């Protein structure tokens, strides 16, 4: 049992990556990225935990009471801000890409097309409708 949190962290990163690799919708993909990030939360908080300790806030308990590692909690707070900024930016990019490409599917919204010619077939509009939020 003593290794379970670390194994969970590795597992979360793995399935998040699987989700990113197979995703057909950018909003789903942003969610998968969030799962990858929660792996770091679990790892950091797991590493900073100690049985029988209080939260590192000495208001109700006098200083000197065994507390968990405050450094890890501070790092996770920063990590959460990172997560918020990334999610906001990715959603902005997704909104704009949807407005211009009419689709949320990574297979359709590719950065560049061979020979500089946009190869937009009729299927494009159909796909766009299907994957619309």
């Amino acid at each position, binding site marked *: 049992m003593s290794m379970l949190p670390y194994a969970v962290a590795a597992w979360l990163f*793995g399935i998040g990556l699987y989700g990113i690799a197979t995703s057909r919708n950018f909003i789903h993909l942003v969610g998968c990225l969030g799962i990858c990030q929660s792996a770091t939360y679990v790892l950091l908080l797991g590493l900073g935990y100690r049985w029988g300790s209080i939260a*590192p806030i000495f208001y109700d308990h006098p200083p000197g009471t065994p507390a968990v590692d405050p450094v890890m909690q501070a790092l996770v*707070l920063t990590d959460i*801000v990172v997560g918020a900024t990334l999610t906001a930016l990715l959603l902005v990019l997704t909104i704009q890409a949807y407005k211009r490409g009419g689709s949320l599917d990574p297979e359709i919204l590719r950065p560049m097309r061979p020979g500089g010619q946009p190869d937009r077939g009729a299927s494009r509009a159909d796909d766009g409708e299907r994957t619309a939020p």
Partner: protein
Amino acid sequence: MSPRLRVALLALSGLALLPGAAAVIAGLPPFGATIAQYGERINAIAPDARHVANMVSAINFDLRGLDTLGEEFMLLAAITGTVVLLRGHRGEGNSGRAMRRAGRALIPRSEAVVLACRIAGPLTAVFGLYVVVHATVTPGGGFQGGVILASATLLIYLGEGYAGWRDAVRSHWLDALEGGGALLFALCGLGPMLMGAAFMQNVLPLGTFRDLFSGGLMLIENLGVALAVTGGFTQLFLEFMEETRATDEPEEPGEESA
């Protein structure tokens, strides 16, 4: 690359990583057995050295204040980026109504919602302020409180409608709040240097332990973060809310509509 090939590649690398991951997990200290020397040391000295009860705040605003400065400006970068990237391709200005998109019904606000928002809005704002000012004493701080304050402004939208919200919330005030808060935080770093101390050194009186006024310079830094986060997140809500307006007429993106 076909999806099947992709998953196969992923599975193969997962298999290759398995022994390494197992060795790392087995090598880590057992969960919950002990904590690192660094954290232990901070728990031991910070209440005395800085008269604060909340160790996480002590780390965020004093011991590792530079990280928080970076984090604050990361947020600023993300919000500036959002503003830049959401320009154009939508109805601009204050006059139009939100949530007007083809095929979407316009539901009138119920009076119960208005009443609930008028009660909950100020309460949420007060709670946000409470969380902000108690940063050094109880769980909370400028970031958490700032997000609560920003959500309080969202209740204006819910209760008073789009026009009311746009009247109450002006984009350039938010810029000023966000930039001003970040500036305040950065100046908390430079100020002590003018007095011959180190960047972000706590030069103010430290106050009393478990009191609202404890932690010295941390209180001002905390205020800067709260301002920046409130302004930033409200700006973020505003920008995304603007997206619900229908485009008046098709317009070209790019430099000119900036």
